């Protein structure tokens, strides 16, 4: 069955089920490490592109680049101040990585380690940090030190938990899913760590799409290039209210042939993207991937019938800034 036909099947299903209409959303507010009440809207439309020619592999340590970029994003003098502007000691922080493509196209452990160190500077104890994706198996494949007990950072997949997903379906627009308990019950704050890559069905899989790893039934939402489903998943209160920081680990990017790693279509990007606003960061990532496709002589994602319209939907829903010209790109 062709994609367009399935899209039709899925979309016509939505109308009958009378899914709640998701309109523009108010901005989440949280308390930070300075006991200030902060609105995430403050950093809407800001994306830092932090690059360093030496950062050309997932195995290299980007700690300096991360702190520098974060300070630029939040307008603080030092990286440590930036971490405290977003997190406080009481937080339980869930660091969602995208482990699907294996070690050559997934966030590197050195970056995750740098995130953990940053959280510690904000006073968050290591035992209150969970690094996670769908399955421990995938995390192990990346070489992450899976840890379910004892001291230190917890590293495990939702599937490792005896009760990994919520028992009830919750709706987020057209999506009806059981959410991972890591995000629904345990975390008070979330960091989303993605990679810069193409996706066969979704167009790109960078940040917004990464939260398909938080629901039990992602395969039911791949029609119509995952739109509007990706945007709707991101509108779920557990993501919308808890997501504080987005990081794209991009020593390399992949502009075609995703979501699996395909060396033929990779390029050295040598950097990170940082944003509080995931929609803006995805929009910038889309631009980077499109340019790379153009220079490789490939068709645009729209011509390829897999333009990630969910980014625009997310913008219309007020989840972030989706208009490229309205995004402030800060180069570091």
């Amino acid at each position: 069955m062709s994609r367009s036909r399935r899209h039709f099947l899925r979309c016509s299903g939505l109308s009958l089920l009378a899914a709640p209409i998701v309109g523009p959303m108010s901005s989440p507010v949280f308390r930070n490490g300075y006991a200030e009440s902060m609105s995430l809207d403050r950093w809407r439309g800001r994306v830092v592109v932090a690059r360093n020619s030496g950062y050309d592999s997932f195995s290299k340590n980007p700690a300096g680049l991360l702190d520098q970029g974060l300070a630029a994003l939040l307008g603080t003098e030092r990286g440590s101040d930036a971490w405290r502007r977003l997190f406080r000691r009481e937080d339980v922080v869930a660091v969602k990585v995208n482990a699907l493509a294996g070690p050559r196209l997934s966030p590197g452990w050195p970056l995750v380690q740098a995130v953990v160190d940053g959280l510690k500077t904000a006073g968050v104890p290591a035992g209150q940090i969970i690094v996670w994706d769908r399955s421990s198996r995938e995390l192990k494949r990346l070489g992450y030190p899976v840890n379910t007990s004892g001291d230190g950072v917890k590293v495990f997949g939702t599937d490792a938990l005896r009760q990994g997903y919520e028992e009830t379906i919750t709706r987020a627009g057209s999506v009806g899913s059981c959410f991972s308990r890591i995000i629904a019950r345990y975390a008070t704050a979330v960091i989303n760590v993605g990679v810069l890559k193409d996706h066969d069905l979704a167009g790109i899989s960078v940040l917004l799409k990464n939260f398909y790893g938080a629901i039990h039934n992602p395969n039911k939402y791949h029609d119509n290039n995952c739109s509007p489903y990706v945007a709707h998943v991101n509108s779920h209160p557990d993501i919308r209210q808890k997501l504080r920081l987005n990081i794209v680990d991009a020593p390399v990017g992949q502009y075609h042939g995703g979501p699996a790693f395909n060396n033929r279509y990779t390029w050295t990007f040598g950097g990170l993207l940082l944003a509080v606003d995931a929609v803006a960061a995805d929009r910038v990532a889309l631009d980077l991937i499109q340019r790379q496709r153009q220079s490789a002589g490939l068709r645009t994602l729209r011509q390829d019938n897999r333009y990630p319209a969910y980014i625009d939907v997310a913008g219309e829903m007020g989840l972030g800034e989706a208009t490229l010209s309205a995004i402030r790109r800060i180069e570091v």
Partner: protein
Amino acid sequence: MNSINRRHMMRLMLLGSGAYSLGQDRAPSSGSSVNLDDLQFKAEPSLRPVEAMFWEKQPQDKKVKCTLCPHECVVADMERGTCGVRENRDGTYYTLVHSRLCAAHLDPIEKKPLFHYLPGTKAFSIATPGCNLECKYCQNWQISQFRPEQIECIEASPEVLVANASRNAAPTIAFTYTEPVIFYEYMYDIAVAARPAGIGSVMITSGFINREPLRKLIPELAAIKVDFKGFTDEFYRTICGGELQPVLDALVTIRREGLWLELVVLIVPTLNDSIEENRKMFHWIKDNLGSHVPLHLSRFHPTYKLKNLPATPVSTLERLHSEARDAGLNYVYLGNVQWGHPAENTYCHSCGKMLIRRYGFQVVENHLDKGHCPHCRQSIPGVFTKS
């Protein structure tokens, strides 16, 4: 694992039986009061991939096309099809649910329901996680709508299953609860292993399967029950995530191949309960499948993503029952109604005398004489003796 012991059986029987509800959009939890050191973990699931039987390589980037069901998912490397249980690994397509049991029960065959197949006997009934459809009223969504690694399963080879069915003196193994199409390879291997042991295999399915795999499977089966969702493509698309025509094609194929077939239609208020639409369906059944195919009209109860509708009024089912009889269908039953309803019983299509009296899933009287009506000697359609 050599056998499914009692503890495993108990566990499997409990799996998927927990409470569930369609929650409302809700506020997020404001903070974690959970001590992360108290989290409970389970053993890492062992997903042993087995190469799928029906798929084709695609020309570009290690993509594959699954040809098992009419979705015909084109799947990129490392990804899965819509059912969530088949995965492309480096350009080869695998099933992840071969030998991964998530449910096993010893059920009356009437519970499937199959009323004209060895009445009063037990079926060793099994499932793996996953489904290629997503019916908004699925009763078993806690196993059908999850991926294999998300559900506690036990490993049971086809041989182990057949041995367990034998030990339980079950003449039948039923593939049921979720959608057996998505565990096709496991089902096929079990059916092949069960035949020499004198055990028949029955498939309880939505019939959303391509012709080639269906035709390969049919000779290994003893009977099939198809959940006919409704008679409009709109209903299939909007409520079930499927299509009508492939199901009609599958039904005709089953009929042509001579496999014993029964049909269930779950009547959902306002969505597929129109008299006109059902009348068309009854005539289609008679014209294409014959007047002897048993038809079970079943009562909807609100569940999963359809909680906003009431249960089907019994009067609606009774009205449709007489419409189906008027259309020329000889064996029409009502399901999920109060036990002891006269439409649970089997009556001879020739003389009208009662042949089998049921109370719920229990056969309380069976007057059949070697598959014949004892009153008028009419041969009754069905499978009434073990081959």
